[in-house]
């Protein structure tokens, strides 16, 4: 391997990512603490998260080891394999919390819907890379059609959060690539129709309920409204300086639901206050800007689109998750990258960053 490649690595991205990962692990330590009569008890979430992080780092290095342009060739077979896995899942598969998301491989369970995001990013990047100009109607629908199959298979699991993520990433990539003005305008007009179609046909009752509860949390103080309220109380009670590390009463006394997964940032907000949250958001913005700089520097369309896909992958998760925790967006099951606990997601996050680093490393490889 060419040692010069290391000097081209986007170090600010790597460093901000590692910082986020460590903050996440530390926060998870605190979030897993439960106060009992006898004192505090910590479960092993943060340790497992660290192990997953190391796995992720391995995947990241593996992804960085070869030229990212080879991924373009792998896009179709990978996409088909993922489709096959999703199909398999609809036939077999464990049902956890009423949703059929996990595929058991005997020694471990994987979530094919997570890998589907990667497959969609790769394939979209490959297809869009062939088009130099803005998309017309034909190309627009061709690109959308790619996403239809995995989205249908994921939505019947049911997993609205992932479906939404895939569609949002796809939208982001299409917008990044560029649309003809008239296509864009007509799509904007069509959006309300699509939204009402989703509401009446595409959604489960509990999902509709969540949105209604979001609009009026007082309606359902024992169910979803309880989540929303307790999470707001947690973040709000952090005030300026926070309650201090492992001092959050909302999380330790188990008022806060899902406190190591989707609501992990509420624990952070409670313990570190506005100052801590501000720092975290600045770090996330810095992280996104680092990805953006790679997109800016990429020397080919595929690389640029790949980085854009990763950018939207992270952007939407950050925006939706934090927005949900602080009561801006209805509750959807979307974790916060590097902060929420989750093995598959962690490995995938590292892999995604690996792809961005790959693009940044090889940005001068063309005209040598």
């Amino acid at each position: 391997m060419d040692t010069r490649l290391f000097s081209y690595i986007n170090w600010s991205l790597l460093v901000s990512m590692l910082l986020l990962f460590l903050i996440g692990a530390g926060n998870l330590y605190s979030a897993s603490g439960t106060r009992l009569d006898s004192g505090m008890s910590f479960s092993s979430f943060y340790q497992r998260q660290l192990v997953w992080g190391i796995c992720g780092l391995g995947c990241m290095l593996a992804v960085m080891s070869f030229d990212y342009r080879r991924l373009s060739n792998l896009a179709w077979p990978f996409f088909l394999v993922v489709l096959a896995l999703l199909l398999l899942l609809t036939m077999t598969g464990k049902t956890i919390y009423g949703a059929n998301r996990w595929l058991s491989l005997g020694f471990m369970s994987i979530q094919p819907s997570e890998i589907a995001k990667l497959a969609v990013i790769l394939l979209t990047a490959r297809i869009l890379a062939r088009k130099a100009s803005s998309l017309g109607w034909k190309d627009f629908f061709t690109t959308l059609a790619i996403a239809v199959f995995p989205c249908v298979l994921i939505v019947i699991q049911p997993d609205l959060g992932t479906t939404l993520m895939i569609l949002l990433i796809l939208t982001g990539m299409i917008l990044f690539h560029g649309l003809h003005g008239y296509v864009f305008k007509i799509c904007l007009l069509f959006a309300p129709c699509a939204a009402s179609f989703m509401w009446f046909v595409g959604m489960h009752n509990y999902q509709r309920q969540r949105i209604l509860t979001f609009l009026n949390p007082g309606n359902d103080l024992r169910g979803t409204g309880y989540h929303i309220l307790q999470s707001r109380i947690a973040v709000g009670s952090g005030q300026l300086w926070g309650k201090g590390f492992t001092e959050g009463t909302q999380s330790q006394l188990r008022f806060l639901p899902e406190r190591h997964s989707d609501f992990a940032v509420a624990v952070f907000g409670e313990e570190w206050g506005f100052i801590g949250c501000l720092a975290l958001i600045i770090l996330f913005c810095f992280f996104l800007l680092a990805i953006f700089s790679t997109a800016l520097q990429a020397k080919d369309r595929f690389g640029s689109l790949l980085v854009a896909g990763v950018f939207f992958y992270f952007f939407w998760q950050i925006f939706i998750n934090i927005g949900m925790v602080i009561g801006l967006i209805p509750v959807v099951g979307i974790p916060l990258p590097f902060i929420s606990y989750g093995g598959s997601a962690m490995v995938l996050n590292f892999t995604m960053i690996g792809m961005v680093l790959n693009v940044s490393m090889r940005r001068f490889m063309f005209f040598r």
Partner: protein
Amino acid sequence: MTSHNDSALPSLNLEKPQCKRVLHSWLKIQVEKECYQQPHNGLILMQILIGILFFVLVTRLWYLQIQCGEEFSRLSRENRLRQERIFALRGRIMDRADKILADNRADFGLSLVREDCRDIPATLTQISVWSGIPVSQIWKKYQQDHFKAKSFEPILMLADISFDLLSRIESEIYAWPGLKIVVRTKRSYPQKYIFAHVLGYVAEVNEKEMAEDAALAMGDLVGKAGLELELEKQLRGQKGLYDVEVDAHTHTLDKFLKKEPRNGNEIRLALDLSLQQTALEALSGEAGCVVVMEPDSGKLRALVTSPAYDNNLFAAGISKRDWDALSTNNRFTLQDRSIQSAYPPGSVWKLVMAALFLEHGISPGESVFCPGQVKLGKQIFHCWKHGGHGAVNMENALVASCDVYFYLMAAKIGIDKIENFAKASGFGRPTGISLPHERSGLVPSRVWKRHRFGKPWVRGETYNISIGQGYTLVTPIQIAVYVSALLNGGDLLKPQLVEDGERVVMGRLPASAHTKNFVVNAMRKTASSGTARMVARKDADMGGKTGTAQVVKLKMSAGDRRLRTSEMEYAQRDHAWIATWGAKNGKTYVVIVMVEHGGGGSSVAGPVARKIYDRLFGVEKNLTVKATQAQ
């Protein structure tokens, strides 16, 4: 740019050349042909999105954590800190000899915690085996209550377990996880009927009471009647508070005592248990009441109403059947007749009229001829004695209870003076006794009649008033206060139920010492040789006056003979009164007995009074009292 460095291509070890070709085409790096230009709009979009992310999230966080931070901080505190009440014991009530009248007893119950219960159907069956209540009923109760309680909260399955059952359950309960014996406090009245009206009862607080008093909460017991209601503030005490730190599952983590509870005051009554018992027995189920008062201090030694009820029924939460039985019977069991009912006083009223006559210059020696009746216009007013009393002076008129004397003298004085004197003597207004819902009675007047009936006063009504008939209504306690004032030098005292209570003078009897002595002497004579002979004793100084208050106009049978009491409808029978005093060994008591629809004062009320004096002064030996059927 067709050529490029391929240093990152991993070395492949493929055997079949065909396969190698396929793989090679898969792994071949595709290079874009034209010079790549970054999509300008796309990059701007990314920057804008980062900007939006930052500003939206930071603004919202500022709003939550800085703007509303204190509010959320309070909510988070409230989340984890619950306040738990520590119940204060309600003060006990004793009689003057420290015998307990109202007590707090432990009520043992059996509760079930679902979370700890392994087999709920089997456990419920076991509860049925212990208690003897059918399983279906236990199931029904469980199904009603288990929604209200969280899985770790106890559901009360049995209450008020007897000691026998309790010991059996205690010895077997180890085999039934999830069952727990719980202790609550309940109010109990060991003397049941004897003090029912005086003590009243407690019951669970209602919404109206909670709205009026912030210290009350759901499930508290408060006084609803009698002294329990009147002395609520003293008896209740103050609840204490625990700050309890809980987690989201309301498991208790820590407890801090925030406020010590203060138990209610114990109260010692002036009443005497044995006297109350005697009085209630003496009334033998008749509707009526007994008041025993010490004239000098105003302390009540007995205040009994019959028929009585068992106030424990209320304290335990009265069943609908019991309530219906008590509230709908025609004897008005729940009414305290000594203070909450007003009756025409009958001849007892003559004690008031005689004092009034003396104060208005009528000489005691002035006599009136009683022919048995007196005419006023077309109306005939009878004396109770058909043949008349002949010539009577004031003392004779009192002792023999001659009606005609009082008709004529009252007509001389006039209604206005009667009204003023009666009101000044404590009638027509409450005596101020510390019991709820005391009645005022009624002293009629010209103004009252015009207001009530729109008609002027007529002379015949003054006749009726003079013998305690007509519109006049008094409560037995008012008579007791009046007779006490005759004896104690003229103080109209507040009847005192509490032993340590102060002597409260509510007013002065507008009568000279001479007047009071005259009336007291007349009562003495009535007891020794007049209509109140029933209470006469050799070992004590006694005085009395009987009364037979007509409920309806005098009814004559066909043979111009008054109907006997037993021949009349219950509701039309006369009220029997006797107002007495007795003194022995320096102790003076006033005893008032009223028997509703009882008949003649001396024949019905007299024996009751006699039994009470027997209890107060001891039974007289070898004495035969001729029960005279004089009015």
